[in-house]
């Protein structure tokens, strides 16, 4: 029985040492360097005029407040140069995600989808090391006055060789979607 008492004692010591620190310490907040909070699509008219900036900004990630989306108004029958900018604004200074994508451009491709009767065409203006389009830089040409939506999709690890992918058709691209944002666009 004496040995049994020893065990009880041992169990007690273990229990006490556990109880000694009841409250859980504050967790270390993870460094969310990967998050994309902000997408900016800057359209500069080739032959001068107003620069159009479309933004999607969601500073608190998947939950919390709704994202702030700003569409754009383009001039009719005008050629634009488009530049995409991706930021993680939870960091100070903001982390340039666009640079990350550029670094791994063989593994990424943007797709531009026009819907709702918008008279707009978007073509790729950049290529990766294999000569396939990326889509960080684009050229756009607007048609007659109209309105609709422009959706920008970023796929990670798409099959760039699949049918239609190099001309900007997402159907056979596969991969995972990292970005899918839709802007209301008007052409006047």
């Amino acid at each position: 029985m004496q040995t049994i008492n020893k065990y009880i004692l041992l169990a007690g010591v273990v229990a006490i040492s556990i109880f000694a620190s009841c409250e859980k310490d504050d967790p270390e907040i993870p460094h969310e360097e990967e998050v994309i909070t902000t997408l900016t699509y800057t359209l500069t008219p080739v032959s001068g005029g107003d620069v159009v900036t479309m933004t999607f900004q969601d500073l608190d990630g998947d939950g919390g407040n709704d994202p702030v989306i700003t569409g754009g108004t383009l001039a009719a029958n005008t050629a634009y140069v488009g530049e995409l900018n991706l930021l993680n604004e939870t960091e100070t200074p903001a982390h340039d995600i666009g640079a990350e994508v550029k670094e791994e451009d063989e593994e990424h491709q943007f797709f531009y989808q026009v819907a709702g009767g918008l008279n707009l065409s978007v073509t790729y203006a950049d290529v990766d090391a294999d000569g396939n389009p990326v889509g960080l830089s684009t050229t756009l040409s607007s048609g007659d006055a109209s309105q609709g939506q422009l959706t920008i999709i970023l796929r990670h690890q798409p099959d760039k060789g699949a049918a239609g992918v190099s001309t900007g058709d997402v159907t056979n691209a596969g991969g995972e979607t990292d970005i899918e944002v839709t802007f209301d666009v008007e052409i006047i």
Partner: protein
Amino acid sequence: MSFFISGDSLKTTYETISAGLFKPDNMKIQVLFGLFLLFPFFSQAQECNLTITGHVRDMGTNIPLEFATVFLEETGQGTLSDSTGLFKLENICEGEYHFYLTHIACDPKQIYFKISKDTVIDLYLNHHFELLDEVVVHASRDENSTQESNSVSRENITSESNKNLSDILEQVAGVSVLKSGTGISKPVVHGMYGNRVAIVNNGIQQAGQQWGNDHAPEIDPFVADHLSVVKGAGALAYGGNSLGSVVLVETKPIDEDPHLHGEANYVFQSNGLGNTLNLKVEEKADWASWRISGTYKLIGDHKAPEYFLTNTGKREANIALQLEKNFSNKWSSELYYSLFNTDIGILRGSHVGNLTDLEDALSRDVPFFTQDDFSYNIEAPRQEVSHHLLKLSTKYLIDDSKVLSFKYGGQLNQRKEFDVRRSERSDIPALSLDQHMHFIEGQFSASLWQDVFLKTGLQFNFTDNTNNPETGILPLIPDYRAFQTSAFAIAQKEMDRLLLELGGRYDLKQLNAVTITQSQPHSIERYNLVFHNYSFSGGVKFKVAPQFTTNLNLGYMLRAPEVNELFSFGLHQGVSGIEEGNRMLQAERSTKILWSNDLKVKDKLFLQALGYYQQVNDYIYLQPQSEYRLTIRGAFPVFLYEQTDAEIFGADFMAKYIPVESLDFLVRYAIIRGKDLTNDLYLINMPSDNIFGQAVYSWKGGDLLWNLRFGVNGKYVFEQKNIQPEQDFVLPPDAYFLLGATVGAHFKLKNDSLLKLSIKGENLLNSSYRDYLNRFRYFADEPGINVSFNANYTF
């Protein structure tokens, strides 16, 4: 009257034909057969006229044990002890012998003796102090139906040691498997899974991240002597959160044998070109009895009939050490340590970024990222899990009828999950959790006045869960500490043909969670929650006639919400949804009634019918919300943990027919329904109805080769029709049929070692099918044909 053949009876030479599921039922036939095998020995010109006599007694109480079986492994001679515990073996040659002792409600035991003259020996067996259900599991192996329906024997575990614990458990009636691809599976018992089914490994409730449907229990099935499912009051003695069923993984005490014994087991599987190697050695040394076992698995990409399932390989390395020491006849102790390590690949094509991707995946015949070649490579997405378990237990017999025991269990679970990420972040886990768990238990069992058996205990449980910030992602579940103090008592009374059982349990649960807010800048919030859990259970077992037993169980249980149900927040990749916990959840209250009937007709026909009905008030489930949440990756559906009233009912049927000794037929049928009563919907993830049939022909064979058997089996799984189309992204898959076959034989080698060889074929028709309970049914077909080869060498 019943006798007991242990799962290890294969060690004996006369083992009656076993089809894997069937254990012999009539001891007398076996004994006669055993004696029959002796005839060749009589002819030898050796002095074989020695006699061994003695008594078989209970180690603690010295009470003689009637109907204990005593076998000499070397000769296959066997006998039964009489009402005074007396046994007698005659015509024994001089030599060294291993005695194999079994008795109902005792752990089987092997003892070694040198016999050179007429000998009188007393043999002791350790009595189980067990309850109704546990007795069913351990003792009634002769009652075919009950045993088969509740446990998996050692032989079946070793021949399938390449599989996961949960997949092996599927042989138990009422158990289905919830899968996430080929490598990850969780048991579903009577429609309950995850937080609602406790898994007890070696007497310690399995800790770890059991809440996740894609988190498989971190247990190597090879360490187990048997696996079983306890569905009644016996479940109250184990950890607090089950709603009625407990899965037990149990080892066997080390045999009292001074020789080194062990086994080597190897399984090759054609699908996935998998290799599984298990080794086990044990010995009763002077200082203590010890056993070491180890497992190594290397499995590559599985193959569906039409394509490879890219990145579905698996690696696993496990080791376990068991030490036992009897300090005296009254006092024994055990130390057990196990380490489980696995690296599991997850189908590459199942990794989706948003709903559009999921819809794309649903519309494809062949998953994205499918490679043309087989590979053992495992890349993201994948899981890396390690699990340590340390158990110390000691048992003291206070007097003839009272036992006091203490147990400590410590666990460390480390889980890392890797996703496909940008900028070489795929090597940084997206989820990284460390969980420590400490468990202390004091238990007291006693036979009290008028043969009332009482089992009572106090338990304390502490869990500490920490997210590693290395992930760079806000954690899905918060850091927390949980404290649980529990007490239980179960009483049992055995009368002539009636067994009554009554039990109760109380748990005080405290949860101290620390969450990180989603809003920027992130801040920290603390929550302290307290829950009281009560459970009651009662059971009656009545032997209506020698051939017919009926068993009724009634239970009322509370289950406090778990940390994921309360606090989880984040994107669930697999289902492309945002999952949100609910801090207002109350405990689930469940009433379950279970009625089972066993009928035995002339040792030829065994029938079992089991029905159950369970009502769960405030059943916690994930309710899809009407709103979609817009993120930079598109709009996601939101799922919130809510409560409803639910009912689950079903039935398991089994019939076994043995027209002649060399032939047996088995049919099993299971049906289950789950309903959300408040919303008038069916419950998701309920197993489809299914029917399993098997026919086995066996040939006992001779001295060297015996137990030759051929079996064919088929399984038909019905389409799950009890679900509304809007409850899922896609309709449940079609019904399917799988054909299987086995061939096996045992060979007697020199030095009493034994070689068992078998070949097993699964999905022999190479059918393309998907299963409703596999979450990866959205993405890919199940594996096609698989032929596995198993060699088991026991010495």
